[in-house]
């Protein structure tokens, strides 16, 4: 019960959002792909003068890679415009709901002026949830079904 309470009262910023990765609309697709690889991340926000205009994720990257698209075109040609986003005061429950309804793995957190402050991810949310029952997850043996022959220390 308390768990449910915290989901609707705790802000999404508690669910380990990533720092947003930002590129200009004029950056080329090739540059953006290399930036994603260097940062080992799967999504980037496209911002024009500090305000978010689109998102480019690894799914978009896959489409371009499969079709052998021109990698010198600007990212603004291929990004997804006006992505679903969260305000900084959105709660964790809302983030989960939007993610599962839309099938998103990343949701940008933006201010009222459209400035991105974070990126809520499915891994961050899972991390947040696991924090509520750490013993259930972190105390598991490395392989299911492996039963120690004797008690540790006994």
């Amino acid at each position, binding site marked *: 019960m308390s768990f449910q309470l915290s989901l609707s009262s705790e802000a999404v910023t508690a669910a380990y959002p990533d720092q947003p990765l930002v590129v200009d609309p004029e950056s080329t697709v090739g540059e953006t792909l290399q930036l994603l690889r260097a940062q080992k991340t799967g999504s980037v926000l496209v911002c024009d003068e500090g305000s978010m205009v689109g998102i480019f994720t*690894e799914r978009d*990257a896959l489409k371009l890679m*499969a079709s052998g698209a021109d990698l010198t075109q600007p990212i603004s040609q291929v990004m997804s415009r006006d992505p679903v986003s969260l305000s900084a005061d959105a709660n964790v*429950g809302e983030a989960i709901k939007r*993610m*599962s309804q839309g099938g998103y793995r990343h949701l940008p957190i933006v201010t009222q002026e459209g400035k991105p402050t974070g990126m809520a991810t499915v891994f961050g949310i899972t991390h947040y949830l696991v924090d509520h029952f750490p*013993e*259930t*997850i*972190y105390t598991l043996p490395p392989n299911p079904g492996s039963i120690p022959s004797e008690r540790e220390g006994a």
Partner: protein
Amino acid sequence: MITCPFCGSEILEGADVCDDCQHSLTDMSIPQPVTPVERGLLKDRIRTLNPRVPYVVSPETPIGTVLENMLAESIGCVMIVQDDKLLGIFSERDALMKLNAEVAQFVDRPISAFMTPEPITLEAKNRIAYALHKMHVGGYRHVPIMTDGKLTGVISIRDILAYLSEKIGVPV
């Protein structure tokens, strides 16, 4: 000082047995699930998540074909299987990290050159807690699910999130 849960007499912290009633105290340190979510994670098996049928390719399949199929099938990862044996997994993330902007020069190379070999797998009969454990600790998005040593399904982090949301009762 703490008290013995069986007879109430005072016991030393860390003692294996209660000096007064001789009850064993060693099970006291085993964590017990308290919330319905925890109980569900430790009780429900992965098969109740209905693992999706994996998309399987042979190790010789050219990478270009694999990318096209991933798009056509709207899937995030393919399994590389030969003679009923799971050799590797190839995901969107592998495509981004290994092919990246140089994709054009690789399209005819076999998938086996880019797959992640010997992925972590789980059995359909394992508890869901293990799936969450592997994904959360290992940072994996997909885990292949085996039944009696043969690949039969795949579950994703979003299946787990959907399961947790339902258990927790995220307000819709």
